[in-house]
């Protein structure tokens, strides 16, 4: 009995778990792993119905702790009229699920869910056609209840119609979906299916996955990021029982042992002679380093009118520079994966957000045809972008190939903080011109950010081991939201795409959109203050007339927060504790989810301590599938980003990352979490948009605007530490 089978037995024995979902199937035999349709235009790629009428949803987007699995089940249950308890979900398995792209960009429901909905609607139409034929009743007269179609006094089940056979249908994107008034599952709060197992200790994370005969591996990373292993002294770990193998290739060093503890001890104790390396910039001069980095490409993302001339001739000119620190994903659970070679083929189990891409990368690294590689998703600790999971899979694959047995790799804390890819440093210069009434007549923004977009972030093992890789940097689509959704008469936003960045970059929740929105919305607040205008009124003044949804979120959040109309900063700035409020707004990527927020802060004038006391948010992501799921994502966005805004900052010396634990890379704690008031706007007749990132975009600007309102001092460097606050107060 393998681990998956025993897991299923456990679920069945548990009884209380209504829905058994399975996150991966092991290959039945060498020939079986591509016999299911996976092409994204096939209904069978998304859906199967077995002889008992149980529905399996196959989806390329994965649940990384967001609850989107429950959302997918709601969508399938709604369109097919089957109970959720009869649905299970298979996610992110390259042999079984369609390639719907990585799970990023707040696209799981917006794209993945909508594709699933179309597949289910197509299947339903086919099933009704078949049922009409079988029952001798017209399609229009049929009713579906719990997977049984009735009409003409008789009924037939889905299982009777197709049970056990694969659909052979193309997905019709125009197949009719249920109208809002007919929905009973979608649009209503449904408890997440994974939570009971998670609170009873029965949930199987990738960290808990075991294979028979499996060994444990640990990478041994260089003490300086660019050094190579000149010599490895295997004798240095001879006294540790259970060590199986030391693997050394270039700068890639790893150990494999019979037990996890032996692998950990061996990795700690192994003596390696590393070459010297000190190629990182001086952290104290990081922004000078960014400005001095060669520009590979200049991208103008918005160009209207003649802002340079308008600013030149303006009654008043404003200019500022905003920076945003390098961040680690700092995953709660260090990256983990299991790899197995069998019959010349590789299978990995990991929490990769992009198994289809990981498959290609592993194939390239190992010189294997990708048909010989299968990557299976299993949930790990919360993932907010491309963190270390793919790298752990590559580590495990190299070690498993070397020892010929399955190997499980889990990074240690210092590996995770030290070696996960980083959110790159982000710098934005802004200039604006105001007319005599304070209206913005010209706006210019220049962002200095690394080149690249989404793509495959190189695998650390390939990089260290000198193995084939793409050798490109991919920080995510970080140019978004430098362009603004406001009706300024002239504007130019320019991204200077830098050729290099100090650390291997990747996307962390709301990449670029957060940093650009922070700079824009804070600078807009500076303009409002220069104009002596109320910050909400000032935004509404430039809200395009044809964008009522943008206006609505701003007006709603102002009401929610009992916003008092007046300019910032507040006049009464006496006493040790100063209080203020700040507003901010984003239209995500200028085309989707609308968010507006008001933060309330207290600043201790003596210590510089900043406390966010309340946070108000109005959120419009169109149709909501599971409203409490959306709320949970909005809460998570706000808290996670408050942590990044107030506390998080990677530290490093000239050789390596020095913030390698939770003491040196501090994150938000319970007493620091504000009261949150969230208003979700439901639009069941609209298309659904993403909710996993947009509300993060507005957090840093809301906080710095509130700090300015409280103190009259403007913070322009994330994180907003007490030391920076004290310095700003002295200068104010």
């Amino acid at each position, binding site marked *: 009995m393998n681990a998956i089978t025993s897991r299923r037995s456990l679920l069945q024995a*548990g*009884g*209380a*778990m209504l829905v058994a979902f399975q996150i991966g199937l092991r290959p039945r035999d060498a020939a079986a792993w591509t016999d299911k349709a996976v092409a994204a235009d096939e209904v069978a790629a998304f859906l199967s119905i077995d002889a008992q009428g149980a529905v399996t949803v196959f989806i390329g987007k994965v649940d*990384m*702790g*967001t*609850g989107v699995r429950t959302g997918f089940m709601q969508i399938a249950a709604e369109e097919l009229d089957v109970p959720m308890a009869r649905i299970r979900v298979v996610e992110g398995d390259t042999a079984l699920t369609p390639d719907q792209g990585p799970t990023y960009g707040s696209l799981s429901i917006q794209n993945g869910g909508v594709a699933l909905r179309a597949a289910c609607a197509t299947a339903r139409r086919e099933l009704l056609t078949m049922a009409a034929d079988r029952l001798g009743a017209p399609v229009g007269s049929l009713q579906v209840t719990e997977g049984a179609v009735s009409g003409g006094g008789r009924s037939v089940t889905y299982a009777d119609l197709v049970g056990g056979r694969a659909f052979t249908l193309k997905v019709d994107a125009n197949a009719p979906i249920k109208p809002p008034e007919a929905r009973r599952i979608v649009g209503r709060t449904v*408890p*997440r299916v*994974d*939570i*009971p197992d*998670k*609170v*009873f*200790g*029965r*949930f*199987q*994370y990738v*960290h*808990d996955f075991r294979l028979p005969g499996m060994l444990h591996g640990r990478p041994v990373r260089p003490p300086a990021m660019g050094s190579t292993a000149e010599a490895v002294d295997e004798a240095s770990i001879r006294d540790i*029982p*259970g060590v199986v193998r030391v693997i050394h290739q270039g700068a890639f060093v790893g150990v494999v042992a019979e*037990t*996890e*503890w*032996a692998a950990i001890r061996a990795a700690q104790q192994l003596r390696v002679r590393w070459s010297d390396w000190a190629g990182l910039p001086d952290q104290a001069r990081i922004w000078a380093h960014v400005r001095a980095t060669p520009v590979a490409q200049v991208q103008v993302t918005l160009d209207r009118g003649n802002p340079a001339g308008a600013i030149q001739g303006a009654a008043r000119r404003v200019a500022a520079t905003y920076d945003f620190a390098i961040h680690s994903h700092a*995953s*709660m*659970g*260090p990256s983990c994966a299991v790899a197995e070679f069998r019959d010349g083929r590789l299978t990995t189990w990991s929490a990769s957000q992009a198994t289809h891409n990981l498959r290609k990368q592993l194939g390239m690294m190992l010189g294997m045809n990708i048909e010989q590689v299968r990557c299976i998703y299993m*949930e*790990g*600790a*919360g*993932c907010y972008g491309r963190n270390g999971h793919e790298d752990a899979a590559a580590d495990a694959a190299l070690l498993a190939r070397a020892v010929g047995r399955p190997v499980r790799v*889990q990074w*240690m*804390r210092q590996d995770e903080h030290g070696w996960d890819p980083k959110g790159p440093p982000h710098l934005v210069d802004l200039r604006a011109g105001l007319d005599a009434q304070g209206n913005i007549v010209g706006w210019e923004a220049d962002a200095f950010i690394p080149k690249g977009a989404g793509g495959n972030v190189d695998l650390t093992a390939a990089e260290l081991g000198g193995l084939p890789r793409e050798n490109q940097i991919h920080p995510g689509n970080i140019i978004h939201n430098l362009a603004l959704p406001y009706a300024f008469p002239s504007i130019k936003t320019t991204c200077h795409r830098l050729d290099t960045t100090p650390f291997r970059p990747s996307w962390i929740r709301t990449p670029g959109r957060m940093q650009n929105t922070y700079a824009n919305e804070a600078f807009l607040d500076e303009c409002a203050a220069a104009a002596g205008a109320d910050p909400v009124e000032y935004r509404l003044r430039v809200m395009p007339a044809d964008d009522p949804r943008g206006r609505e979120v701003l007006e709603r959040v102002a009401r929610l927060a009992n916003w008092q109309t007046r300019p910032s900063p507040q006049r009464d700035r006496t006493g040790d504790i100063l209080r203020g409020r700040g507003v901010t707004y984003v239209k995500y990527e200028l085309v989707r989810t609308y968010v507006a927020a008001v933060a309330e802060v207290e600043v201790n004038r003596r210590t510089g301590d900043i406390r966010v006391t309340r946070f108000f948010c109005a959120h419009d992501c169109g149709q909501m599938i599971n409203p*409490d799921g959306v709320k*949970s994502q909005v*809460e*998570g*966005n*706000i*808290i*996670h980003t408050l942590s990044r805004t107030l506390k998080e900052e990677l530290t490093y010396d000239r050789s390596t990352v020095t913030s390698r*634990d*939770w*003491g040196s890379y501090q*994150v*938000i*704690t*319970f*007493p620091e*979490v504000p*009261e*949150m008031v969230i208003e979700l706007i439901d639009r069941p007749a609209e298309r659904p948009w993403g909710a996993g990132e947009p509300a993060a975009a507005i957090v840093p600007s809301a906080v710095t605007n509130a700090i300015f309102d409280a103190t009259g001092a403007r913070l322009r460097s994330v994180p907003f530490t007490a030391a920076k606050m004290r310095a700003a107060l002295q200068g104010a």
Partner: protein
Amino acid sequence: MTETVAMMVNGRAATVTVDDPQMPLLYALRNDLGLTGPHYGCGLSQCGACTVHVDGNAVRSCQMPVADAAGKTILTLEGLGTAERPHPLQAAFIAEQAVQCGYCANGMIMESAAFLAKTPRPTEAQVRDALVNNICRCGTHPRVVAAVMRASRG
């Protein structure tokens, strides 16, 4: 040289045989006893993901040598309650939907269970202070506090 450690785990006698008595209890629970409720998060007692009860106290199992567990009574998330007989905190975490990825949930629940045993009617501020050394990255904090308060009301 191996050593055998005997302890009570979730109400049953358990023994583990280890090469190194300094191995943290966490690995014995997860790998030798198959109890994967407690998670490895940091190995430094900084995050709380590995929390178990040892003789009724919340302890970070990632830094407690397994040898020190000899003769002790260990309770893990699996032993706290089951779907059929949930601990009030487990029921409250479900009711409040106080989980996203859930990697920290073990620590949140085990730390809170030990806290509530000593402070059955806490204020929200006391709950937040009790969990100050438990890290969550997903941002479930308000729901966790709501769940602990719900559990405390019985």
